């Protein structure tokens, strides 16, 4: 039959972003391939107080959630503002990228991105102080993310 139109197959919210996990075992091509088939999303810019229940409720709107892993400060073992959401199907994850990404959870605009899949250890922040890297160098004051960034609050 006739062709598909490029204008209509545009699905930019589902595209893989520029971020690549430095700890991924494999080259960039392999990582991209995994991301294009992944059912897991990284969710960022959460408040430290956002609960697993809230994440479940929101992300269930695009399909059945298989599991949620709340990101933890490596030292304190408390929530440090990110999580992973794993779906049973790719389609459900895609709909989350299209319709949940960039909307609010707990009054904050959250950001979702494809993830190669949870592995033990990935639930910890990779910043020097134990939280996320972004909170190491942040200059602004964010009461939901521990106040000032570590670089500001360090004497």
């Amino acid at each position, binding site marked *: 039959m006739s*062709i598909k*139109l490029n204008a209509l197959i545009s699905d930019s*919210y589902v595209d893989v972003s520029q971020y690549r996990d430095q700890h991924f075992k494999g080259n960039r091509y392999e990582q991209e391939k995994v991301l294009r088939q992944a059912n897991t999303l990284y969710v960022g810019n959460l408040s430290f107080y956002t609960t697993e*229940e809230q994440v*479940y*409720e929101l992300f269930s709107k695009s399909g059945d959630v298989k599991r949620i892993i709340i990101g933890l400060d490596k030292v304190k073992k408390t929530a440090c503002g990110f999580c992973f959401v794993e779906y049973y199907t790719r389609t459900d994850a895609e709909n989350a990228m*299209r*319709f949940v990404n960039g909307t609010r959870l707990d009054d904050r605009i959250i950001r979702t991105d494809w993830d190669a899949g949870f592995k033990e250890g990935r639930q910890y922040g990779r910043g020097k102080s134990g939280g996320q890297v972004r909170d190491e160098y942040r200059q602004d004051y964010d009461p939901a993310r521990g106040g000032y960034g570590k670089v500001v609050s360090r004497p």
Partner: protein
Amino acid sequence: MSRRRHSDGDDDGGQSHKRRRTSEPIEIEDRLESLICRVGEKSTSSLESNLEGLAGVLEADLPNYKNKILRILCAVARLLPEKLTVYTTLVGLLNARNYNFGGEFVEAMIRQLKETLKANLYTEALYLVRFLCDLVNCHVIAAPSMVAMFENFVSVTQEEDVPQVRSDWFVYVVLSSLPWVGKELYEKKDVEMDRLLNQIDGYIKRRLKTHVPMLQVWTAEKPHPQEEYLDCLWAQIQKLKKDRWQERHILRPYIAFDSVLCEALQHNLPPFTPPAHMPDCQYPMPRVIFRMFDYTDAPEGPVMPGSHSVERFVIEDNLHNIIKSHWKERKTCAAQLLSYPGKNKIPLNYHIVEVIFGELFQLPCPPHIDVMYTTLLIELCKLQPGSLPQVLAQATEMMYMRLDTMNTTCIDRLLNWFSHHLSNFQFRWSWDDWTDCLALDADKPKPKFVKEVLEKCMRLSYHQRIVDIVPPTFSALIPADPIFFYKYQDEANSALPGFAVAITVGNAIKNRASNEEILTVLKDVPNPNQEDDDDEGEGFNPLKIEVFLQTLLHLAAKSFSHSFSALAKFHEILKALTDCDEGKLHILRVVYEVWRNHPQMISVLVDKLIRTQIVDCAAVANWLFSPNMAHEFTRFYVWEILHSTIRKMNKHVQKIQKELEEAKDKLERQQHKKQKDSGDEEDMEKNSEDEDGQLEEQIERLQEKVESAQSEQKNLFLVIFQRFIMMLTEHLVRCETGSVDFSTPWYKNCIERLQQIFLMHHVTIQQYMGTLENLLFTAELDHHILAVYQQFCALQL
């Protein structure tokens, strides 16, 4: 520094290499497609001069790229109906410059029409026909041949023993094209057209409308009747005819080119016989036209076209098509909706809001996933912050006022949308405007709605937040604090049977005892169901389940993850305790007892229990319909759980069916390969025989699995329907003997929930129609209940 500075090189994939090798022709084809798709967009020149320019470019490219151009134009005809007249004008200009090309295009369109009909793509076929109709306006197709095609379509209404939805579609195609081409066809062939419309009139009058009540969003006729889609369109066309086919809304670029176009030679459509009806044809389901606004609702600015004006039809059709084209790209979708051509002459925001809610509330299902509409409305609010939020608030207020007659399924979707929407706007709402609901009984739709909304809002935030956002007068509607109820909490309960064991088990779990050790501890729990001198001790022991599960869930109450870990860790014990149906039912009862203030937790736990096969789907259905849960029966979360359970069952069946298909395909490929390689040595033959044998065994096992799963699925639906019938019959009989009106809020909720089961799972239920009719929905049933079944059957006839 970084080893990963460039993305090409040896760790790049194959994609970009491919693109580089064959770039040139593809680039030109992409460019052509882009030029055609984007004509008129983002240009300082007029649409007409853009079309003129594009026609020139394409004419020049015809010698080299004719086929590609033909295919692109056919695709836009099929897939971009909201820009119909732009492309018919383009084709008209091309035909004027190149008669042969015009002829080839028409032929290609007819081929496509046949293919789409064969492939059950009825919506796309509809747009193809409409495109052909508008080509009459562009002097590409001769009017009499179009009328002849219409006559063939309408003759389908004379066919016997075909589903009504088949003749519906052919009539709909004719009627829905008339806003574009009615005038022209009437000018050329008024006698024939009159005859056609008379035939259609007769058909519309005699067709059955059993399906309508099941599809209406509101049961009330006021303020806006929920009309059946064909009835509404017929009224609109009759009014258009009365207005002598004067239609002023549709953008018609070809008018500017009239002098050029009327010089062109026209083509005749070849005679087109509608393909015969086949059993596997899937015609579109009937619809009800959703209306919530009229001219009184948009106070300032342009007037909203009336419900029977053809303008209303065209606007709604175009807006639906824009959403269909761009639903995956919410920013583009919002921008396209808001830049609708002719927007200054209509209250566009009202139309957009009405169309969006129309889709969200569409029965049986919205065309797209529910959450898309929430996010789309948020994007629209971002683009029109000064006007759209007000229209949305007005719409919400209206829908609140009309809750009493709103279909329960639609209320579900409304409260899901509203709570999610509020969570994006700090839960700001004028709750004081809704204090009227506080004076009503809690089971009435308005207070019920507010209560469920607040509960959903709490799931996206937390309890104190909800307390803070509503006025103190609303305290009765605030959801309960989602705390855990532990039976064996403190010494005050020490008299309870099993209390001591509960403490022991709790300590055992905390000290990481093994499953065997815990089972040993549990042996001490007396069985209230057994005689003292009964030796067995292995039967269903509700107290054992209670003691263990209450304690386990109490220890794991901190979060979902904790509870899931607990269920996983003690899976063996739970399986052992719930080996029988009563055990499964009791586990669900205990989950409810402890978490009755936290419906979300109940939902996720039930989901896990099903997925880990501790309970089965039928057990969940029986539990939800049991007398213990009667007081929760009208709560939203109960239906969330039931529908989720049915969906899991459906997905499970589909999964195994897919595995079976794949195994069968694999065997076929293997045997195919064997045939080709035949004549090999004996060794090879023996190996492949073994392989075949293994596969055949696997297929047999999978076949059994599929049959078993389908049987379970059928049983699930039977259980659900049986329970509904029992409950509803009991209610109706009780009301009749007591001479009381049966139409209570509970009854409305219950009967609409029965409808909802049919509607939400209609694809699966179709397979079991025979059993349902013979076993359950027989003529002896109360006609109120039977009506639901009959309405459902009418959806596909």
